[in-house]
């Protein structure tokens, strides 16, 4: 049993480490996704300053999670790693998610935001894909008890659902205001 003071990694420390780093990647990613809804619903705009830090922490834990698997579990055996990632869909999903996080991390600076402008917003929408890949990766490696990934999946559904609802509401509002600015052009009823 690997134990340092009150912290224990248990009888299978490699597995525990990989799992803990992975779970924290998901938690931090979900917290990153929580910022916008929280900010818009409470009006606390200062929350925005946390978002980049949380996102980068999620990336950091994703790297730890992947490194633990590559090094401690697979012993950096290149041939086995490649063959495993190709053969096991859940590994391919995880790898893809981490790879997609790289351009987001690299373009997380203020300078990059200024340089990319609108393209930055489009690029960073990848976070939704990353989150979906992450939860899928988790779900497919669970042996039988899907309750833990189910909780994270439901939370993600709420976080993404917020964006969906917002998009629908905004589209309706735009259409309504377009109608208002062009009186007489249409006799359509109020939406």
């Amino acid at each position, binding site marked *: *049993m690997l134990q340092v003071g009150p912290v224990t990694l248990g009888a*299978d*420390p490699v597995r525990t480490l990989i799992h803990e780093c992975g779970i924290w990647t998901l938690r931090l990613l979900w917290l990153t996704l929580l910022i916008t809804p929280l900010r818009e619903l409470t009006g606390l705009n200062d929350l925005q300053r946390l978002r980049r830090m949380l996102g980068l922490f999620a990336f950091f834990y994703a790297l730890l999670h992947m490194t633990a698997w590559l090094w*401690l579990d697979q012993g950096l055996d290149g041939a086995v790693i490649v063959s495993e990632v190709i053969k096991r869909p859940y590994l391919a999903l995880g790898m893809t998610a981490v790879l997609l996080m790289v351009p987001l991390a690299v373009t997380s600076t203020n300078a990059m935001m200024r340089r990319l402008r609108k393209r930055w917003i489009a690029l960073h929408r990848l976070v939704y894909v990353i989150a979906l890949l992450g939860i899928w990766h988790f779900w497919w490696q669970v042996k*039988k*008890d899907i309750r833990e990934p189910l909780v994270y999946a439901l939370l993600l559904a709420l976080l993404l659902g917020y964006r969906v609802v917002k998009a629908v509401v905004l589209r309706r509002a735009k259409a309504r205001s377009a109608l208002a600015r062009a009186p007489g052009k249409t006799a359509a009823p109020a939406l």
Partner: protein
Amino acid sequence: MSRPYGPHILPSDITPETIFMDRRRVLAQGLAGALWGAATPLAAWSAESAADRYKAARNARYSVTDTPNSYEEITGYNNFYEFGTDKSDPAANSRNFKPSPWNVTIDGECEVKGSFALEDLLSPQTLEERVYRMRCVEAWSMVIPWVGFPLAELLKRYKPTSKAKYVAFTTLNDPKQMPGQRDRVLDWPYVEGLRMDEAMHPLTLLAVGVYGKVLPNQNGAPLRLVVPWKYGFKGIKSIVRISFVEQQPRTSWSHSAPNEYGFYANVNPAVDHPRWSQASERHIGGGLLAKRQATLPFNGYGAEVASLYQGMDLRRYF
């Protein structure tokens, strides 16, 4: 070494483990009555601790020479979903489980049937210690010093008929004692089975103890199966029924995911689980930097059991 705090406690002051584990019943019965009764757990007041009741000679022929895992690892890292699905759940949640009194029903295609008390099942058996490798389908492994007796020795006493082609086992179904059974993560009760020749094989063990001590609840007290050349989920725990049957019986993991877990479940590095490789395993106790070990066909027991599967396509019959 100086003792930093507390009074000095003599080893003879320590309450014997069985008394401690059974203390509520002991107190309820009352010390006076129990001191006279020989058939109560207080018989453990005798010289040796009853926790070491199952100290038995090691059967070297069927034991591996690998270093066994520690008692803490063996009793603290378990898959026993009847008590929860985390590895630490069985130890934490099985404290109120009562492995005594225990009866086992033996029935099916045999001449001698009935429900038998565990003591009666054990009394004619000679217990022996066997150090076995244990390989979980999740790709981790341990080495465990079981105490038990060959299943064949038990089965012979019930005179299976020629119709008996398989042996089916059932675990207790009692959600009050086994809180994990309130969740339908598997269909309860847990069931398992072996082909007759596998059941009669000298390696197949019914275990009642580990490290010379009585089997802890989280390891499948009071009676569990150990089939070392198969994945650990074949080692059904807390057995209440053994039946001789004609048809291949249902087995819980295969029933829950037929494309992932088979009836035979022989350890085989050449046949992967659909979602992960079986070519290597992590040995528990190896530490953070320990490398994975190559998995051996039949978990290293090929010389003893490969002949049982001659001519069988082990990729098909996984």
